[in-house]
């Protein structure tokens, strides 16, 4: 909090390379750092999903590179089931935390929220820098889990830290999924491969990540409440800002709960407490209390962990998707050249989704033995989220209705977002009913649902955002030609991967199994499994186009002007890329709503938020500026 004396120029533009690009307090640099972190993390997560597909479709095949990297985890190049399960865990953890939470919020939110509300930076720039570096430390710790469990000698060195840090079990981390259910996660090394150092580092990484996200959320909320420029009333904010704000509120209120749960879990693992570990456990041939490595535990509640985890876990999926919704609304309106249909309804729908998100965590626990009456309550609340979701979808279609769409790559991805959100969301209505969930839980149907709706849809939102804002961030366009190929390969690819998952789930294929070779009743889905694997390989390969496009366009892309898309919001009112204080010393004054396209009587087909001359009613039904 040491940067705060004068009005606008609170920190002068840095000159040294380190202050400018590494330990920068400029929200734009920090935003790009977050995006780079996500781009690195997503590679790790994607490689893991590729390995899982290889094992599912070609079980028993030897992959020599795996033996070189993980001699214990893949003896002879063939994955052990434990190795596969740790891939599942780490794929989920890295994707959810370090990709879906960092890029949409920390990345694009950091870069564009201050500019879109007309601020020169975040409210607390140093805190902003800190939140990125804390998050990066979290990522390094989770990568350590891979190394410590995967490598014998590093694992042996780590064991010196204490008995619970014994590693080198030949996995790439803990086994137990990104949900880390107790008591498996709470017992320590005794519970099997990956449950020693891997699990410790996993919990520590998540705790560090929580702290980083909390610092970020605090900054976002304060910035939005306190730093809006003159004329930027709440109902004149772009929907992206509403989405980032709501996401920040969700993060602020849900991450502390995970942090609390994580501390309890770590104490169970290292201090011998029994918060989550029930009494009388018999694990790996030992009774609780009969061995120094397995101290006596009594009376803990494994369900308590599930409650704490999912109280965080459900808002987390909205943390992943809401920024994508914001970006999609923004981009649809810009390229449909029409105002967002029902702006106010969109704002309330974002809020409603965020609010309801806090009361539905129980739908992840229908089969945990909870009271059927609680199940009914959670079920009804869950299905009611369909209402604001439908409002949003309806309004997206309303925005597109009768418009002359400009089919840029950004627009294609935004349309893809709507498609995937609907396809993935519709199965939520199936899974949200406790009676149906009893049959569907823990099957590929669930995997299909959440991958489409929170995974791929969010990623499509981010692709759209990247293609849309790249000219602003780097002053150059991304290649539209490569972008289109990238879109179609990815769009068809993800459907080819995740639609068959539904069929597999309905046929009874359980998730998180390393191999289905022994299940006769699943023989008839083998062709689908193969199709999915081939589609996955092609889709992953298509992402190379994206990376190529990003890094090539940064230096060689076609030069972009200040407002290449003829958009209306404040970020298009400054140079590309924006100067250090965003608006070169003079903060803009806002006279119009965020989406004034095709306004009758206006000189152009769009009215920028700062246009003082345009004598038009603003987009929200208020009388605009009058001289």
């Amino acid at each position: 909090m040491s940067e705060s004396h004068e009005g606008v120029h609170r920190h002068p533009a840095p000159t040294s390379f380190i202050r400018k690009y590494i330990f920068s307090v400029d929200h734009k640099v920090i935003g790009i750092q977050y995006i780079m972190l996500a781009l690195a993390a997503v590679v790790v997560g994607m490689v893991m999903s590729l390995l899982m597909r290889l094992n599912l479709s070609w079980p028993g095949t030897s992959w020599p590179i795996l033996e070189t990297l993980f001699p214990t985890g893949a003896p002879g190049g063939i994955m052990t089931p434990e190795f596969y399960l740790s891939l599942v865990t780490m794929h989920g953890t890295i994707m959810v935390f370090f990709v879906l939470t960092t890029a949409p919020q920390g990345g694009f939110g950091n870069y564009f929220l201050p500019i879109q509300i007309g601020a020169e930076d975040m409210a607390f720039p140093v805190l902003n820098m800190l939140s990125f570096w804390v998050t990066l430390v979290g990522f390094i710790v989770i990568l350590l889990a891979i190394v410590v469990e995967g490598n014998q000698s590093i694992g042996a060195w780590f064991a010196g830290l204490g008995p619970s840090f014994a590693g080198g079990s030949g996995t790439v981390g803990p086994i137990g999924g990104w949900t880390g259910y107790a008591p498996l996660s709470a017992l320590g090394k005794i519970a099997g491969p990956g449950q020693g150092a891997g699990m410790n580092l996993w919990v520590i990484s998540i705790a560090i990540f929580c702290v980083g996200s909390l610092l970020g959320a605090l900054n976002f909320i304060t910035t939005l409440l306190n730093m809006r420029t003159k004329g930027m009333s709440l109902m004149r904010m772009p929907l992206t800002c509403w989405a980032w704000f709501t996401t920040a509120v969700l993060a602020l209120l849900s991450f502390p709960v995970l942090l609390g749960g994580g501390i309890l879990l770590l104490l169970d693992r290292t201090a011998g407490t029994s918060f989550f570990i029930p009494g009388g456990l018999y694990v790996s041939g030992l009774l609780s209390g009969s061995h120094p490595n397995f101290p006596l535990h009594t009376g803990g509640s494994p369900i308590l962990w599930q409650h704490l985890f999912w109280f965080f876990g459900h808002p987390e999926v909205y943390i992943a998707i809401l920024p994508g919704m914001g970006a999609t609304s923004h981009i649809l309106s810009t390229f449909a050249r029409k105002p967002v249909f029902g702006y106010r309804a969109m704002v309330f729908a974002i809020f409603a989704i965020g609010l309801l998100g806090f009361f539905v965590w129980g739908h992840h626990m229908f089969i945990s033995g909870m009271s059927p009456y609680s199940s009914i309550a959670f079920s009804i609340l869950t299905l009611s989220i369909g209402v604001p979701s439908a409002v949003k979808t309806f309004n997206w279609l309303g925005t597109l209705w009768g418009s002359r769409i400009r089919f840029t790559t950004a627009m294609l991805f935004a349309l893809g977002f709507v498609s995937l959100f609907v396809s993935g969301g519709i199965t939520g209505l199936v899974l949200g009913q406790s009676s149906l969930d009893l049959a569907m839980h823990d099957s590929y149907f669930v995997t299909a649902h959440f991958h489409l709706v929170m995974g791929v849809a969010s990623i499509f939102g981010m692709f759209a955002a990247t293609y849309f804002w790249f000219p602003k961030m780097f002053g150059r366009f991304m290649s539209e030609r490569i972008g289109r190929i990238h879109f179609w390969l990815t769009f068809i690819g993800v459907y080819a991967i995740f639609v068959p998952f539904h069929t597999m789930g309905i046929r009874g294929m359980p998730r998180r199994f390393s191999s289905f070779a022994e299940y006769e009743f699943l023989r008839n889905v083998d062709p689908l499994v193969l199709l999915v694997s081939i589609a996955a390989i092609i889709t992953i390969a298509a992402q190379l186009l994206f990376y190529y496009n990003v890094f090539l366009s940064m230096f060689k892309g076609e030069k972009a002007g200040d407002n290449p898309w003829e958009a209306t919001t404040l970020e298009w009112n400054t140079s590309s890329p924006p100067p250090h204080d965003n608006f070169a010393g003079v903060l803009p004054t806002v006279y119009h709503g965020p989406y004034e396209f095709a306004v009758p009587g206006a000189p152009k087909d769009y009215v920028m938020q700062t246009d003082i001359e345009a004598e038009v009613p603003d987009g929200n039904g208020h009388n605009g500026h009058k001289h």
Partner: protein
Amino acid sequence: MATMVTSTRPPAIKKDAGAGPGFPGPNGNGSKRGGSFRDPESHANRYRIGMWVALASVTMMFTSLSSAYIVRANSANDWVSLPMPRVLIISTILILASSVTLELARRKLRRSLTSAYTQWVVITVMLGVAFLATQLFAWRQLKAWGLYMSSNPHSSFFYLLTGAHAVHLAGGLIGLSFLWLRSRSVTSESAVLTKQASADAVTIYWHFMDALWIYLFLLLFLWR
């Protein structure tokens, strides 16, 4: 200066709610300074807003631990209630006193009495340190009774909740030290406002830690 538009349109957020700049909307004929300047008062206000937002997350964390406490107390019959270390009464008195002294400090600052302000801040720091010392003493007492972190669920929660509170209180001490270091008198308007805002923010936090301790004390020893 205010145009017709200003009066027909309510501000987006009430200013005294401490929740935003509350610009009254389009005001094109207004200040000729354009947008190049921020109102220093609302700008300094970000410390207060930021603190309330931060406290919302602290509240959520202690809510999660409290709910774990209540669930765990009823999940099995291995709960053994701890005897209360008497020293906790002293620590409670200390932290209540520290809230009073910090409030006095803040009021001195309002009247620009810099040296009195500094004195009360320093006294608050000492009371805060004394509180942490008594907490440590309570831990040693439990240890002397043979009650450790893993002895039974109530002792686990005792160490956890008092420890988590102590860590947060230590953060408050860092904030107070920051006020102490920055306590020399300043003249420029924005520096005065910033100083008051940061003093307010630390005070809000400290009072919150005080109330949180009272709550934890009641939860640990009176909740059944």
